[in-house]
């Protein structure tokens, strides 16, 4: 698992990132998106690879049912709520240095210091197991390179589903690759970096367990629901006014 993660997976990520930038990502994205307004209001996602994406999602769901869900169920059964929260805080705290750097790249120095402060406070007071910093006014703020690229006006590009990792798009994929290289946690060595990646991925899966299961049992078209939920969530993270741009039902007499 270690070798697969560190050699093949990283090689794919590197090749993908080089391809994206060689083909001039923004020009490509502009060319393939025919109707920017449809994209911006969250009702339409450019999805030229739908057929292959659906197959990959099918694989991901089977993989999740066989390998991940039993792990999540077992983990939730044996871990007390307080320990689960502590572990979630620990991996969340490890994201703070990356968040700080991405805010710095974005030119938002206040938020960059906020995230750095959170990391220092939480690590020194509880090794990151407890969110001490929220009590001193340092609120958690989310950021990553995908968001930075989105705020810089780069378009999403085609929607993609990556084996095991799940939904993304060209922009967020480029963001993920950049996140990997600029994350200071990776300075601590490859094994720490791998533990962080796997641990935080598993932790996200545990956090969204109920939501994912609801979606699996409720949705008439799981692929479409996941695509829209992913797209809308990212739109909201990039643009605060996203909600105002959403389509609204026509009014009929009630």
């Amino acid at each position, binding site marked *: 698992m270690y070798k697969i993660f560190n050699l093949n997976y990283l090689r794919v990520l590197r090749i993908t990132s080089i391809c994206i930038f060689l083909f001039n990502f923004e020009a490509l994205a502009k060319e393939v998106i025919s109707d920017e307004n449809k994209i911006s209001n*969250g*009702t339409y996602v450019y999805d030229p690879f739908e057929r292959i994406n659906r197959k990959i999602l099918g694989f991901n769901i089977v993989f999740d049912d066989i390998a991940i869900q039993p792990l999540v169920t077992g983990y939730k059964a044996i871990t007390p*709520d307080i320990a689960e*929260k502590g572990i979630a805080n620990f991996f969340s705290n490890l994201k703070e240095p990356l968040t700080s750097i991405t805010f710095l790249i974005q030119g938002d120095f206040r938020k960059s210091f906020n995230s750095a402060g959170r990391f220092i406070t939480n690590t020194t007071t509880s090794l990151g197991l407890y969110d001490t910093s929220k009590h001193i006014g340092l609120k958690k703020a989310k950021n990553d390179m995908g968001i930075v690229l989105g705020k810089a006006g780069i378009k999403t590009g085609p929607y993609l589903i990556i084996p095991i990792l799940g939904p993304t798009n060209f922009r967020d994929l480029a963001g993920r690759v950049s996140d990997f290289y600029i994350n200071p946690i990776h300075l601590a060595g490859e094994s720490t970096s791998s533990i962080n990646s796997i641990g935080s991925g598993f932790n996200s899966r545990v*956090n969204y367990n*109920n939501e994912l299961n*609801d979606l699996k*049992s*409720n*949705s*008439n*078209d799981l692929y*479409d*629901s996941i695509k*829209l*939920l992913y797209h*809308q*969530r990212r*739109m*909201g*993270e990039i643009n605060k006014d*996203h*909600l*105002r741009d*959403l*389509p*609204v*039902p*026509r*009014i*009929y*007499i*009630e």
Partner: protein
Amino acid sequence: MSKKFKFIFLLIFINISSIHSDEYLEKWFSSMSGQFIGIIESENNEQLFEDLRLLINKNFAINSISLSLIGRLVNKNSVNDLDRYKKAFLDHLTRNLYELVENYDGQTIELEKIEEDTNGYLIYSILKYKEKSYSIVWRVGMIENIPYVLDIIIENSSYYVTKKSEFSNLLRQSKGSLIELTNKLEEGNNR
């Protein structure tokens, strides 16, 4: 001078009316969310579902949401078919919300702020459960001076947008048949 006076009067009037509508909405929202939490706390699951359906029927713009989801099909179907579809949609929405909340007893909904926009109001709230919190924005429209929920946006994901896409796909598959869409909804509701 007279123009200035009119302008100041207008400004004061706008401010007062917006304060009034905010206060009115705040009370309406507190009452609705209070009832919502009260229903969730219920031990009897069958009663919970029924109570939730009544609450949704009273506070959500079921006509507006359900008919907007099918677009032009509104004019191409009989009143009976539309009524059957609206009933199936109400059950579908109730089931969606029921499954969302059934595992989360002990949760609270806190009002954050109310903003007015061109389509009505956005009521920002936080649903807290144990140590977790979720952002829920309620899009509310005034229909004949009564507030109705037009959309629920959970963590930036709009229920209306998601359902619009889902229903469009189902209608495409069934070549635009509302009856087949209704059958599918009823099938899901009885599952």
